[in-house]
């Protein structure tokens, strides 16, 4: 099928051969989709994203990318490797991992230079990405001088400059202030509208409806326990509670004590 980008069948993966991280994952992702992967900490979201980016490979099961089975040995072919990295980009959860160059400019240019893009094309893309993310003033600074929000923007820029067909983001809004979060959500919506496939893992349930057409819910057993459209998933309070995505808590405001499931969607219903 032409429109299918990823197909995972009964995929298992474990770290050091003894710590399971994915147990029997079945996933299909099509071109142009917006996908959210939600789940508690340690449920396997990041492992899945790294597998989609061809950084780790199933211990058992099969992963197909663009209709072809993906194997570790495929990356020994320089053309395949270059083509794959141009098409699929991953923004890591920890921006300090992704920003390893002495300056922001060098970090952003690292990908295009490795992938053999032409100097003029790189300069044009740099200007475009810098404009989209509003990071012009940061180019000559060292990554260690930046705030977490700025680091996340630079990490996104360093992947976005490659102009991949598939953009994978591992918790891109974690720990960010509301304004930066909004900026990133709008960026993801725009990139999807421009034709990119967007796959995002997140804990932020209140952004899921905007960044996803389809949601995969991971359980603590490292399995995808449910998938469906965002409304279906977010309305299933029991599912979210069982998988540590919301919790019941008490708090006090306007002079009254409330006890209810902690989820941000409630505020929208009130409004």
């Amino acid at each position, binding site marked *: 099928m032409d429109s299918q980008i990823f197909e995972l069948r009964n995929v298992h993966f474990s770290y050091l051969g003894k710590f399971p991280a994915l147990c029997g994952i079945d996933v299909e992702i099509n071109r142009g989709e917006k996908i959210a992967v939600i789940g508690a900490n340690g449920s396997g979201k990041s492992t899945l994203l790294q597998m989609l*980016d061809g950084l780790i490979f199933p211990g058992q099961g099969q992963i197909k990318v663009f209709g072809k089975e993906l194997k570790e040995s495929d990356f020994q072919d320089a053309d395949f490797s270059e083509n794959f990295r141009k098409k699929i980009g991953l923004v890591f959860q920890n921006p300090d991992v992704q920003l*390893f160059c002495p300056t922001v400019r060098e970090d952003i240019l*690292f990908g295009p*230079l490795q992938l053999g893009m032409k100097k003029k094309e790189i300069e044009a893309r740099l200007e475009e990405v810098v404009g989209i993310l509003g990071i012009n003033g940061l180019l000559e600074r060292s990554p*260690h001088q930046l705030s977490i929000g700025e680091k996340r923007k630079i990490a996104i820029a360093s992947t976005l400059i490659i102009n991949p067909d598939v953009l994978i983001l591992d918790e891109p809004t974690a720990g960010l202030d509301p304004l930066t979060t909004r900026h990133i959500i709008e960026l993801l919506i725009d990139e999807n509208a421009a034709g990119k496939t967007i796959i995002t893992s997140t804990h932020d349930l209140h952004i899921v409806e905007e960044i996803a057409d389809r949601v995969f819910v991971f359980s603590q057993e490292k399995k995808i326990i449910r998938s469906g459209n965002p409304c279906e998933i977010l309305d299933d309070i029991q599912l979210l509670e069982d998988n540590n995505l919301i919790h019941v808590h008490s708090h006090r405001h306007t002079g009254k004590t409330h006890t209810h499931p902690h989820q941000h969607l409630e505020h929208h219903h009130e409004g």
Partner: protein
Amino acid sequence: MKRHSNNFIEHSLIGTLDFLKESLFAEEFALKKGFLQLLDPRIKVLTFLLLIIQAVLIKNILILFYLYALCLLLAAISRINLGFFLKRTWVFIPLFSLVIAIPALFSIFSPGEALVTFKLLSIKFVITQQGLSGAALFVMRVITCVSFAVLMSITTKHFELLKVLRIFKVPQVFVMIAGMCYRYVYLFIGIIENTYLAIKSRTGTRIHYKRGQQIVAWNIAYLWSRSYCLNEQVYQAMLSRGYTGEPEVLNDFRARIKDWLWLFCVLGICAFLFYLSRR
């Protein structure tokens, strides 16, 4: 006693981290808009190497003194605080030269015309004129070389220095590792500082030294484990963006007329000093 020991560890740790931050990461002078800061880093490094080589070859103390004066003049027009600069450079002198220069003063190593004679523990020591001038020349040469090296490093951003290394054909992998070390040393300084504060907030100031040793040992192990983990993740992040073993870099330096003028000026100075020393 325990309080002293804790304070000693605290002062050493904080002092070391502050020194690292100030000396490696501040780039206070490199960001100023002085003469040297505005030069093309390639030409600056090349000309400073020429000046250092010149200082090594010159055998006349007066000419060395002129060269040192030139260095101080360059520092001044590059908006470097001279007090700071002298402190930063002279601190290396005992380290690099006094150990060699002091014995050279005496007649045992530098026979010649006696200048001062004294007895210590009934042993007769003679400082000779040849010894004194040799030691003075040596100290002057070291201070001139160190001053040029320090001036170059404090007026150049560290990433520009790394780029210059690449241009001078130092292997890319080596330069990249050096850059990454710089980048992640800062991250680990932050982790050490926060870990120290976290320990302090839970243990107070009084702690038995054995427990203190255990905590420090555990933290060293923890830091090693963090760095090992980070190393794997960084490599994955590099692979994800197309890294295949040989890093590609962009050379975006641009030499202007001012840079070429400075290069010719230094070549002229070197030729003139060479002529003076041969006369």
